């Protein structure tokens, strides 16, 4: 029991350490599986014609991030009420400023088509989000001192996070992680601005559904056959035992294997 407990505590400690190192503020969750997620319909600024009827307006948010005198801003997460956009900030993301006690972070949805053309072979996947930060009292722009994590949900599962650079157009933030499970893209950025999820337009996508369905059918078929064989073998064994019992013989060992019978014949 104590050895079992020891292994269990070691496994739990290993998991805690690994999860804290790899999952802190990132796209990795300690464990999470689900079906089609999110089940809430995407809220568009400018919906495709077929989705106009049921579309709800996307929500923005404005949140205060407290400043400390020595370390600057505190660690915080700013999430829009509809969960479509978020900014995760580490401690010290904004520097302290004389007379200021907070930075206002603002996240507002926008139509990407009105901002710029998409990059080649790329389509917009959902709304753009304009993320700004200003010092609460004087209204001057607050710049990021540490990279922040931008999280955008997309309707189709786009894999790129793009930031708009005036004069250049949309550029990839570089350090981005698409999470298919939640239709989100996480990206590290050193600058705030306007972000959108980009969907690479492929010629032929990988046929995941037929492959997955086919493989699951093979798995069920193979498992069923093993179960069927195992049950028939058990039935044969018990019939043999019953016959032996009826003849008054002990059940004894199983019938010799084919190899053994062949040796005997020789």
């Amino acid at each position, binding site marked *: 029991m104590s050895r079992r407990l020891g292994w269990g505590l070691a496994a739990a400690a290993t998991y805690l350490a690994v999860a804290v190192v790899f999952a802190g503020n990132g796209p990795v969750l300690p464990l999470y599986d689900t079906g089609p997620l999110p089940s809430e319909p995407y809220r568009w600024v400018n919906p495709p014609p077929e989705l106009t009827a049921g579309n709800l307006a996307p929500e923005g948010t404005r949140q205060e991030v407290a400043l400390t005198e020595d370390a600057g801003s505190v660690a915080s997460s700013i999430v829009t009420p509809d969960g479509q956009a978020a900014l995760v900030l580490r401690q010290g993301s904004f520097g302290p400023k004389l007379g200021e006690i907070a930075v206002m972070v603002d996240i507002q949805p926008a139509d990407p088509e009105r901002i710029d053309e998409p990059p080649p072979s790329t389509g917009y996947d959902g709304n753009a989000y304009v993320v700004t930060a200003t010092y609460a009292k004087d209204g001057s722009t607050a710049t990021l001192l540490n990279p922040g994590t931008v999280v955008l949900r997309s309707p189709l599962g786009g894999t790129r996070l793009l930031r708009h650079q005036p004069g250049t157009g949309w550029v990839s933030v570089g350090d981005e992680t698409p999470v298919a499970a939640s239709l989100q893209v996480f990206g590290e950025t050193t600058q705030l601005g306007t972000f959108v999820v980009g969907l690479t337009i492929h010629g032929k996508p990988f046929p995941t559904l037929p492959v997955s369905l086919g493989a699951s059918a093979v798995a069920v078929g193979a498992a069923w056959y093993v179960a069927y*064989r195992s049950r028939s073998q058990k039935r044969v064994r018990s019939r043999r035992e019953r016959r032996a019992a009826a003849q008054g013989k002990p059940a004894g060992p199983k019938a010799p294997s084919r190899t053994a019978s062949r040796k005997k014949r020789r």
Partner: protein
Amino acid sequence: MTTDAVRAGTPRAATLPSNLLTGVTLVAGCVALLARPVSDAFIPITIAVAIAGALHPRTDARAMGVDRGVWIFSVAIGAGAFAAVRGALGPNLLPPPTGWLLGSVVVAAFAEEAFFRRFAYDAFIRWGAPVAIAASSLAFAIVHVTLWGWRAVPVDLAAGLLLGWQRWATGSWTAPAVTHAAANIAMLV
């Protein structure tokens, strides 16, 4: 650990065709989970793979009896670890939970555990509990790559080791299944 597990659960000798078919079930199940798209087919495919795992006859004799005290204790350790990590992560960045989501994460957890901790663990137990735990955890981590990316592999591998320990300690796949379901729900709230 090895001696205990092997002594306690001496696996039944398997014939070559049944070994081959066990391998086919394992590989096909992993491919099905790895390629499952995030669509309405996600849960049905996960359940089909769980059926494959549940159909396969068990080889680990030790799984027949479960000590309730050990079971509760191992679930407490596992759920405690997942809860601690959830607490350390801060606010939830996933969309707000719905009844459908909560139901589907519970179904997905039981289905995956039926495949990995019941069937895959059993398939590898003839080489000893450490191999069974490691191999089932590795397969578990790999099938999640398409959902969470390669960055999730160390976390899922460590989660698999913890769930594998529960399987070994209790002799039953239900302890990791309950823990996995609780962990999935914790991620949503």
